[in-house]
């Protein structure tokens, strides 16, 4: 029997009787946020390190890039960047955060692409590394797949840091 009299209590009662209306929000504690930021940073380092190693002439760099791409996707899927899952739909703040993080990823990759093209132009004049074989272009493709996802994941975790602390404060009430 719903409580009558206090409008707020009545609303809360209705929610309690209709669990489908409850927001099943993801809970990122302080440890999860710190771990997420560390993993995102490591994945970004793996991607950039793989590219640098490949350009330096080591085929191990190609393996690193091939590993980094699926890991970047997995990292994004387990971060605050992930889209709606199950009955949970991100609210307006979360959607805004996701958009901002993806924008960071796209902008970062665009900047790297622009500077990379400048570097390749310079290399073509000075006899440095320029992509020539199919594997070279595959390596660049892997880099362009992994990099925006890694930057966006890192940005999303950085924007979630305060939320982890907030949730713990809420639990203390």
């Amino acid at each position, binding site marked *: 029997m719903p409580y009558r009299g206090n409008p707020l209590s009545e*609303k*809360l009662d209705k929610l309690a009787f209709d669990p489908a209306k409850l*927001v099943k*929000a993801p809970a990122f504690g302080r440890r999860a946020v710190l771990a997420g930021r560390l993993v995102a940073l490591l994945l970004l380092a793996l991607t950039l390190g793989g590219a640098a190693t490949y350009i330096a002439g080591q085929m191990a760099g190609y393996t690193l890039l091939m590993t980094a791409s699926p890991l970047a996707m997995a990292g994004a899927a387990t971060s605050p960047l992930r889209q709606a899952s199950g009955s949970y739909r991100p609210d*307006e*703040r*979360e959607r805004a955060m996701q958009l901002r993080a993806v924008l960071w990823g796209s902008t970062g990759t665009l900047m790297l692409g622009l500077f990379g093209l400048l570097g390749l132009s310079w290399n073509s004049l000075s006899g440095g590394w320029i992509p020539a074989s199919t594997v070279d272009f595959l390596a660049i493709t892997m880099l362009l797949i992994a990099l925006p996802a890694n930057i966006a994941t890192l940005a999303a975790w950085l924007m979630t840091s305060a939320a982890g602390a*907030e949730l713990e*404060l809420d639990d203390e009430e």
Partner: protein
Amino acid sequence: MPRTIFNRIALFRADRGLTRRQLADLVGVNPQTIGFLERGDYSPSLELALAMAEVFAVPVDLLFAFRPFPPLAGTLTRSEQS
């Protein structure tokens, strides 16, 4: 540059004895979003602002404003003196 929006969400939430989770369930957002709103780290959409005003049963301008709200103690003192 967006203008800063000040709010009294924490004040009304405490007055009604609601936790962040309960308020979040009532307006349909993540509980963490309530914390972001209370700290002023996030400005709500018109829909969310109206939903909050509806939950607390107050006009939306009592909940959100472009200028900082006067301290509650000062407001109470003035109203008691008058």
